[in-house]
């Protein structure tokens, strides 16, 4: 069973749970205050505006009790995926390195983007190395930033053209090296700004999100 954590202000929990079902997995929406980590094999932190995204996106949720439990799960090797606000929470809580800064254009931005998979040793990108996926972003604070040699190694997906070219032209928010998704060293904790659950249904504009979500199954 996969826990889909809901904080006050989370907006994407319903479609995330439905997308997991579409991927052949079982997800359960759990209130962050009632979260019992022993019941779940993996965790998704869905998108939204946890605690209104006041102060900084994800900052208040990162300090909640549930994140301590999620950290323990991650340390024990369980899979953790943060989508959009979930990614912001994971960086704020220190489960992922780096920071997500306000978009360079200073605005919220919804846009369909192409993503090139550059690291295939993570929970959600096994066998997807080099693939180009199509799904939307929707965020105001998604400009990934980090300092140090480690940054390059964490990147899982980059914003690209439809054919997989990666350069500044395809960078929607000013992320360092077009970074759209990162993972920890062992690849079991992944954060991504794009929304796979919005590209997961027969009526969606794309179903590429399912390829990522399926990775949450198994150990």
């Amino acid at each position, binding site marked *: 069973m996969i826990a889909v954590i809901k904080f*006050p*202000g989370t*907006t*994407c929990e*319903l*479609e995330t749970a*439905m*997308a997991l079902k579409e991927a052949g997995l079982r997800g359960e929406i759990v209130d962050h*205050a009632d979260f019992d980590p022993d019941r779940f094999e993996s965790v998704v932190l869905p*998108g*939204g*505006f946890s*605690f*209104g*995204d*006041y102060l900084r996106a994800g900052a208040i949720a990162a300090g909640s009790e549930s994140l301590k439990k999620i950290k323990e799960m991650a340390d024990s090797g369980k899979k953790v995926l943060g989508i959009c606000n979930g990614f912001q929470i994971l960086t704020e809580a220190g489960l992922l390195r780096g920071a997500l800064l306000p978009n360079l254009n200073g*605005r*919220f*931005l*919804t*846009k369909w983007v192409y993503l090139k998979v550059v690291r295939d040793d993570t929970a959600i990108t096994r066998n997807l190395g080099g693939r180009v996926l199509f799904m*939307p972003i*929707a965020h105001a604070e998604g400009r990934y930033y980090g300092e140090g040699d480690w940054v390059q190694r964490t990147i899982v997906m980059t914003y690209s053209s439809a054919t997989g070219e990666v350069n500044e032209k395809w960078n929607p928010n000013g992320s360092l090296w077009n970074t759209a998704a990162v993972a920890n060293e062992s690849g079991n904790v992944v954060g991504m700004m794009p*929304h796979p*659950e*919005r590209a*997961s*249904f027969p*009526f*969606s504009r794309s179903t590429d999100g399912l390829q990522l979500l399926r990775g949450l199954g198994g150990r």
Partner: protein
Amino acid sequence: MNPEELTKLKSLLGRDPNSTEIALMEQLWSEHCSYKSSRFYLKTFSWRNESIVMGVQEWGDAGAFKLDDGTIVVLKLESHNHPSALDPFNGAATGVGGVIRDVISVGARPVALLDMLRVGPITDRRSREILRGVVKGIGFYGNSIGVPVIGGELSFDSSYLNNPLVDVACVGVSTHGLKSKTLRAGQKLVIVGLTGLDGMGGASFASKPLDGQDQRGAIQIADPFSGKIVMDKTLQLMDLVDDIKDLGAGGIGVAILELVGELGAVIDLSRVPLRVKNMTPEQVLVSETQERMIYVIEPSKVEKFCGEFRKVDYACEEIGEVTAESKVTFIFEGKVIASIPNIAVKYRPISRWSVGERREPFVTEYRNSNLEESILSVLKHEDLVSKEWVYSQYDYEVLASTIIRPGWADASVIRLPNGKFLALKGDANPDLCQWDAFRCAKAIFAEAFRNLSTVGAKPRAAVDHLQFGSPASPGVYRDFIDSVYGLAEASKFFNVPIVGGKVSFYNEDSNGNPIKPTPLVVMAGITERRPPKFQVEAGDSLLLLGFTRGGLGGSLYQKLFGGKWEIPDPILVDDLRASELVSSWVNRGLVRYAKDVGKGGLVGALIPIIKESLGVTIEIDSIIADSTDPRVKLFSESGGRFLLVGDDSIISEAEENGIHCNKIGQITEKRTLRVGDLEIELQEVISSYHSLLEERMN
């Protein structure tokens, strides 16, 4: 409160009202809450068909229609014009919050928003500032609460320089029926959210012109995080509550008075949870603090209900109960501070205004322009450029059910939980309405009908918003009445009931100049089939369905170049029959592009093709019209027409139905627009389409 109303109040109470009672009744009898200037005429909309489950008769916060499987679709349209003029960000954001709470109040889950924005000229710095704030505010609230803004309108006109129009529509869905307004004595009244000093006197504020005086008390701060808690918890606990009332204009006082119906209530204001200390009971009564709701709950369920709210640290308190006694009593620390008998609660004042004469046919000075200049002016007009700068700031993908996205087609489409598709579109045409509000109202209803058919949807219901200057001006009042009759006639003709709406008067600048009359319609329709994304390519033939009629009065061409033109008289049967054909073609997969011919006429309808970096050749002689004037053929906005790309078979099918359908040109790879001997380079049009708004707004 005016002297007549005060006298009336005295006679209803049978005694002198105290100051609290006057303050309370002033809110209830304000234009905003009582519709005293409009209610009489709005009854013209009082008809429905079998699918309507909530119409204007209910006089509720929203309207609703039912699908075959029992799914109910709720529609609500509301503006926040005056607050947005003062504080564009918070004004627009709180408007979104209010319209969402109205949908929740009838027991539905909000699934989509539309925003229809009208501001001053794009060249004006203050207007751009207002627009920036309004868009940011709508995004802030809609994104944070997780309801997608899937479409809308944006146009610029000097008429809205000091009085922007910020209309937001919300659509909700319920699969478990709606909350009925049937109260029983003994039910408890419960409030959630803290009450503060913000937003004092908003109801009467919304009913007054902006006079430049200090309106500080009326500023409300948007808090979508709290709004989200209220929404999620209410939807989660829907089974525990019998009825819900949003605390909108007029605060607790008006909400309770509007709620009780034939019964009564006792409210203890000292139990209302406060944000600031030492508020007077009068302030508690009329405060319009956002993110509050009142619930009607059986006594045994109150504890469980409030427990859920308190779990997320959100104030929840029982403040009174429904009584069989026919009066509403507000007490504070054991003392009665206001007591209103039912006879006064039910009474609504009527304001009667004199009705002006129909406007004279108008003439504006004609500014001669050659065809090339005319075409380019329309193609590059700021009302017709890409609105991506606006909608990219909205999370139009949240809920993962958006099918036809903003900017894709004439209407937006989402997938409903039952697998059907809901199409939505908002339409207004103030440039036309300023000359003839009756014809214009019919025309905008017809336009919305056509727009929905381009995505294959069958229109089911509409909500309206009637926005004008002061009703004290006979000309303005005439426009209001004409708009009502125009909408009502079209609604009846198309069998699309108007299920709810709003009226907003006193939209004028500090010199008392009214805005252009701006009736607005939001229409919803249903289709079984997922509409396709339109695809066109070089070599495709362009088909024009329908007969082009002269009369450029109120058109974009007339706005740009003036002249003496007739006002087109909508022929609704044209709109109906052509729309039904187009809808069936879309559903049968026979068309790859379907565009309503509206603003900018045929030239305007070419823009979605040109923006794909394509060119067009137009054979002007092939356009069937009642005039040989190329200006009529290219710029007429007469109804009943569509520009199409599709299967050849549709031409004969149209003709079998007695509707003209002609090949009028072709899409070309070369990026020029050719009309007869004229060839216009389009590169600049294409780049201005994509970048104009972005560049002007940054």
